[in-house]
């Protein structure tokens, strides 16, 4: 019996250790960012000036950059991911299912720095020489496409993020769709619906919450991406409507400035940005888990 107690205590100890580590991360971020929060108050997340010389810091450019790049990524990735998920769950013939699923998962395994490397040498030149001039020429009257075609900028970052989150959204969506009970489909088909109509009316509607959860999970991943983004976004704390402009995200500013922030307010401000990042991903991921859990009727398996 003694052995049992030891075993149980040991496992509990490690489980608690996990909780302690995560709580410490949050606690550390909070503690270190207090000086900046005290100095700049509630203005901190909404002020646009990031001036290390004058020791004035506002996190808005990074929040803005993170939000815009992530939303852009979602807009591009969502239709494609959903299409793949529906294809794999409902419409694909068996001989195509396995290879397509496999290849989509391969996309998820590619490390961020390699996406950045590829983006830098292939995506960016392509954007700069073909895509962006095209956008400027035909849509340049819109505020979204103003400015010179740098190649590097919000559009490049959004595109690479889209490629990176596509596999997550599609694989979770596919699981959600597959979890929809068959009787829903069969009922629709029995009533004379085409396969697409059965999918649309029965499966998608039923799995709406779960699909939303998948989107949230993809969003969560996009929010925290560092390396690929910092290599492609231009690293400039600028708030601009134009997708062609350079920007910065919360993760990329930390990567660039953390190792050298020497003024105490500078470091504290960066910790504040880290806290914002931590908090945002926490909220988004919690929302995602809840939604997927609801649809899978209990414990949904949503591990990568």
């Amino acid at each position, binding site marked *: 019996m003694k*052995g*049992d107690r030891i*075993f*149980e205590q*040991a*496992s*509990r*100890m*490690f*489980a*608690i250790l*996990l*909780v302690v*580590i*995560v709580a410490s*991360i949050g606690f*550390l*971020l909070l503690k270190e960012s207090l000086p900046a929060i005290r100095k700049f108050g509630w203005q901190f997340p909404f002020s646009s000036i990031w001036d290390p010389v004058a020791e004035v810091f506002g996190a808005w450019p990074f929040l803005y950059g993170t939000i815009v790049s992530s939303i852009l990524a979602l807009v591009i990735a969502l239709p*494609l991911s959903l*299409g793949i998920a529906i*294809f794999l769950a409902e419409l*694909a013939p068996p001989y195509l299912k396995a290879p*397509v699923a496999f*290849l*989509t998962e*391969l996309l998820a*395994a*590619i*490390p*961020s*720095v*390699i*996406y*950045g*490397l*590829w983006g830098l040498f*292939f995506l960016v030149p392509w954007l700069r020489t073909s895509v962006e001039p095209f956008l400027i020429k035909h849509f340049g009257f819109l505020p979204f496409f103003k400015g010179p075609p740098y190649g590097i900028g919000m559009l490049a970052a959004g595109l690479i993020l889209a490629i990176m989150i596509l596999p997550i959204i599609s694989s979770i969506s596919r699981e959600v769709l597959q979890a929809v009970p068959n009787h829903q489909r069969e009922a629709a088909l029995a009533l004379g619906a*085409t*396969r*697409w*109509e059965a*999918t649309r009316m029965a499966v998608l509607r039923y799995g709406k919450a779960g699909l939303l959860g998948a989107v949230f999970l993809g969003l969560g991943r996009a929010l*925290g991406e*560092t*390396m690929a983004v910092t*290599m492609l976004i231009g690293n400039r704390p600028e708030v601009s409507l134009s997708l062609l402009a350079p920007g910065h995200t919360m*993760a990329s500013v*930390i*990567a660039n400035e*953390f190792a050298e922030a020497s003024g105490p307010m500078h470091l504290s401000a960066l910790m504040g940005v*880290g806290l914002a*990042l*931590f908090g945002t*991903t*926490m909220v988004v*991921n*919690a929302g995602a888990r809840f939604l997927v859990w609801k649809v899978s009727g209990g414990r949904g*398996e949503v*591990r*990568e």
Partner: protein
Amino acid sequence: MMGRDTLRKWVNRWMLALTFASALIAMVPLFLIFFHILSHGIGAINLDFFTEMPKPVGETGGGFANAIAGSLVLLALACSVGLPIGIFGGIYLAEYGGRKTGEVVRFFSDLLNGTPSIVVGMFCYAILVKPMKHFSAAAGGAALGIIMIPTVLSTTETMLKMVPRSLREGALALGLPYWKTMSSIVLKSARAGILTGVLLAIARVAGETAPLLFTALGNQFWSLSLKEPIAALPLQIFTFAISPYEDWHNQAWAGATVLILMVLCLNVVSRFFMKNKLARGRS
């Protein structure tokens, strides 16, 4: 009526085509990335790449030997941190996780899973590098280990839960203490599945760069020491990629080739095992 039915059939065909097209479009970047990396990387891979250290700026040649060795050291360190917490944590959740505590632990594990890796790097800088007054492989390994935990934990929990109750009950009925039942019988039965979780976790952290920026720092020399800064494959790829030197770019491609092949092998092997295990488990 006839017209409407034709429209519906037409829409049906088109939607099928569109979803298939989505799959194809998603494949395009995948194939492009592979093609570009392999075509640029293969050329730069030679024996030197695996045996030489990076040369100073301006001299051609050199290799990634220190980065590859460094990554292996970091992965071993990461395992020594991440595996005990992940596996024992998974055991706790599967066997002892009462409703309340179990939910809390799972929630925190999810939280950690979604935490951006750069935040973990900031944390390890503050609690390891700063007090130790050293950038080190230990700090880098700890950061990677922390990132590994959620993957290992959830796979372990899932796999253990799949072991049928009858196995446990049989062993207990024969008089084995509970802990011996766990270690000798249950874990052994679940080990293939747990291994897949471990492999997936390793594959994930093998490519991580951000947390190493302020922990392992990087090193142009050969070093396996835990207390010194250490080179790492993704880190060196990053440094070389953003440099202006053509020679370094080529080596970055070569490094990317090695890294992506390594990560993919781990993924493919583990998913293969996972499918097998799940299939057997379900039957």
